[in-house]
C-alpha cells in the first residue's frame, strides 16, 4: 500500500493574461520508506506540485482535477477533501515540509524555542516541559546544541544551522512523509554534504518516506530510490534511480543528464539543451519538448504523448521515440549518458 498516491493532479494559477497550467495530469506513487526525487528546471511546475501536496498553494492557484490519496494504517483519505481542522493536522503531523528558503522559514522576531513550542501546541502538545525535552532530543538528532540554539533568534544562526533546525522541527511529530523543496541549494559544499548524510541517517533510523524537489541531479543521485523528471508541468519520465541515470528513455532526461558536468571520472560529451523552456501559457501543440528535441519527428508535434511503460513496468516515459533513444544510447551498462554519447 503506497503512503501517497497522486492521480491525474492538475494545478492552474491565474494571471492577468489568463490561466497558467503549472501542473498537468501528474500521477505517481510513494511507498513506505521510499525516497522520491522530483527533478525539473525553473518553470517545470515542481514547486507548485510540492506545495499542492499539502494544499499550501498561494493565492490564485487552483487544483483543477485529480486526487491526492494519503494512507495511514490502512485508512486512505483524499487530501483534497480534508476540512480545515483535519488539514491542519495533516500538515506537519503527517506530512512535514522543509522549504527551499530554509533561511527565511523562521519568524525573525521570535526565538527558535517559541517556534518549536508554537508547532507543538498547534498539534495538542500543551506541556511545555515535554515539548522542551522533545526539542532537546530532536536537536541532538541533528547534531545541534539545544542549549545554544533554542534561546537564539533566527538571525543568530548560520544557514546550515537553520536548515538543521528546520529538519529537526519537521521530525517533531514523527510524520510519515517529509517533503523537501531544494533542501541544500543555498548551502556550501561541506554543509550540503553534512545535510545529505544527516538525511540518509535519519531516514534509516526513523523510516519516513521522503519526496524532494530539486533542479540538482546530484542530490537525486545521492538520495533517491526513484526519480521523476518534469518538463512544462508534466511528468516526462519516471524510473528508479539507476534506470534514470544510466538508461533514460526521454530525450529531456537525456539532455538534462548530459548538461551536468562531473568532478570525478571522465568528462564525456557534456552539452546544453538548445533553446529554452516553453511559455506555459502558449504551449506548443503535441509534445512540449519537441521544439528542443534532437530526435523529434513530425508525429511528435501532432499529439502530446502519454506516459507509457518502457523497458520495465516500473519505468515510464512520455515519448514515442523512446526506442530510438535507447538505440542512440547503446549498451545498458552503468555508464553515464555523457560518456555514452561521447
Amino acid at each position, binding site marked *: 500500500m503506497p503512503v501517497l498516491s497522486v492521480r491525474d493532479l492538475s494545478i492552474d494559477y491565474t494571471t492577468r493574461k489568463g490561466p497558467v497550467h503549472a501542473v498537468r495530469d501528474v500521477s505517481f506513487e510513494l511507498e513506505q520508506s521510499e525516497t522520491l526525487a522530483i527533478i525539473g528546471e525553473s518553470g517545470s511546475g515542481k514547486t507548485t506540485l510540492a506545495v499542492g501536496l*499539502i494544499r499550501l498553494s498561494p*493565492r490564485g492557484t487552483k487544483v483543477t482535477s485529480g486526487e491526492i490519496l494519503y494512507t495511514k494504517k490502512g485508512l486512505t483519505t483524499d487530501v483534497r477533501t480534508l476540512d480545515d481542522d483535519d488539514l491542519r493536522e*495533516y500538515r506537519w503531523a503527517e506530512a512535514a515540509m522543509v522549504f527551499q528558503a530554509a533561511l527565511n522559514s523562521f519568524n*525573525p522576531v521570535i526565538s527558535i524555542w517559541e517556534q518549536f513550542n508554537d508547532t507543538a*501546541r*498547534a498539534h495538542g502538545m500543551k506541556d511545555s516541559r515535554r515539548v522542551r525535552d522533545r526539542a532537546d532530543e530532536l536537536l541532538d538528532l541533528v547534531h545541534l546544541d539545544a542549549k545554544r540554539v533554542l534561546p537564539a533568534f533566527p*538571525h543568530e544562526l548560520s544557514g546550515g544551522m537553520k536548515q538543521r533546525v528546520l529538519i529537526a522541527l519537521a521530525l517533531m511529530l514523527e510524520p510519515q512523509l517529509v517533503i523537501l523543496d531544494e533542501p541544500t541549494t543555498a548551502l556550501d559544499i561541506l554543509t550540503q554534504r553534512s545535510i545529505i548524510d544527516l538525511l540518509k541517517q535519519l531516514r534509516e533510523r526513523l523510516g519516513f518516506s521522503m519526496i524532494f524537489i530539486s533542479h540538482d541531479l546530484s542530490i537525486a543521485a545521492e538520495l533517491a530510490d526513484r526519480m521523476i523528471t518534469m518538463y512544462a508541468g508534466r511528468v516526462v519520465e519516471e524510473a528508479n534511480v539507476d534506470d534514470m541515470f544510466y538508461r533514460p528513455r526521454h530525450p529531456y532526461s537525456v539532455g538534462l543528464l548530459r548538461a551536468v558536468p562531473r568532478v570525478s571520472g571522465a568528462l564525456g560529451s557534456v552539452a546544453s539543451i538548445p533553446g529554452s523552456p516553453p511559455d506555459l501559457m502558449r504551449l506548443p501543440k503535441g509534445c512540449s519538448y519537441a521544439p528542443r528535441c534532437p530526435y523529434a519527428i513530425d508525429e511528435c508535434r501532432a499529439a502530446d504523448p502519454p506516459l507509457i511503460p518502457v523497458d520495465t513496468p516500473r519505468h515510464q516515459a512520455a515519448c514515442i521515440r523512446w526506442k530510438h533513444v535507447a538505440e542512440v544510447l547503446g549498451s545498458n551498462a552503468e555508464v553515464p549518458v555523457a560518456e555514452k554519447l561521447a
Partner: protein
Amino acid sequence: MTTAVAAKDQVRTAMDPRRYLGDAWRRPISRAVVKALLTIWVTTTLTFVLIRLMPGSPVELKIDELIQTSNGSLSYEDAKAIASGLFAINLNAPLHEQYLSFIWNLLHLDLGNSFLSSGTGVTSIIVAVLPWTLFSVGTGLLLSFGVGIGLGLLAAYRRDSLLDRVVSTGGSLISSIPNYLLALLMILFLGVQWHLVNFTSMRGAYSSGMQPGFTPAFIGDIFYHASLPITIYFLSQIGHWILSMRSATLSALEEDYVTAARARGLSDGRIRTAYVGRNAVLPLVTQLAISVGFIVGGAAVIEQIFAYQGVGLRLLAAVTQRDYPVIQGIVILTTVTVVVANLAADLLYSKLDPRIGRAGGATG
C-alpha cells in the same frame, strides 16, 4: 557571495576619530539619543535666532513698543533692560553669552515671563495647558492606531473582498480630507444644520463648575469636553493606519516564514498575531512617533475650532497677542514632548525587533 562585500567602509576610516559621530549615527540606540538631543538643540537655537537675530525681530519690536507706550519716559536703554527681563536674555551681553545664558535658563526650565500677564512664568502657563493637549491627542492617536491596525489587518486578510474595498477606500477618503475641514464639517452638520450636538456646552477642557479631581463625574466631564477633538484626531489618523497596516500585512503574508508556519499546521489565530501582525506592525511603530509631532501641531487649529483649552489654542492666542516668550516656550516644549515620544518609540522598536541592538551572528 562573501559577507564582507556588504560592508562598505574601509578599516582606515573606522579608526578615524572624526568618524565617532558617524559611527554613533549608525548604531540604532545611541542614534536615537543623539537624534533627540540634536533635535532639541536645533529647535532651541532656531527659536533663539528667530527671536533675537532676525531683522525686525520681536525683541527690537518690543523695545520700540515699550518706548512708544511710555510716551518717551523710557530711554532706549531702559526699554532694553525691561525687554531683557521679559525675554530672560541679557541684551547687553555679547551674543555668545546671551546664547549661553539662554541655554542655561532653558536647562532650568526658565523660559522667561509672558508679556501680557507680567509675572506669570511661561513654564507655568504651558504646564497648565499641555496636559489637555497630550490627553486628547494621545487618546485620539492610540485609538486610531489600535482600531486602524485591526481594520488594516482584517482588510489585508480579506483582500479584494467587499470589506476590504469599503475599509481601504473609506480609509483613503477620510485620510485625504484635512482634519480642520473635518472639524468644520462636523460643526456645520452635527451642530448648526441638524442640531444633534450642543457645541457651546463642550467648549473648554472641562465645565466651569467642576471640581478637578479623580472623581467619576470629573473624569466623565473631561471626556465629554475632549470628545470632539479626540474624534477628529481619530478620524484624521485612522485612514493612514488602515492603509499602512494593510500594505505591511500584505507583504508580511508573502513572507516565507508565514507559509512555513502554515505548513507546520499552526492555527490561523496564532499566525495572524505572532507571525503576520507582529512583523507588519513593526515599521508602523516608527511612524507612530512621527505622527505624534504632526498631530500636536495640527491640534492648534482643532483646538481653536472647538475652543478646547490646550497648548495649541494658547499658542494661537500668543501669536495674535505677539506674546513671543510664550510662543518660544511652546515651540520648545512641544518639540521636547515630540522628541521624547520619538525616543520612546525608537527604544520600543529595538525591544520589539530582536535584530536591532543585539550583537549579530553566532558562528556556524
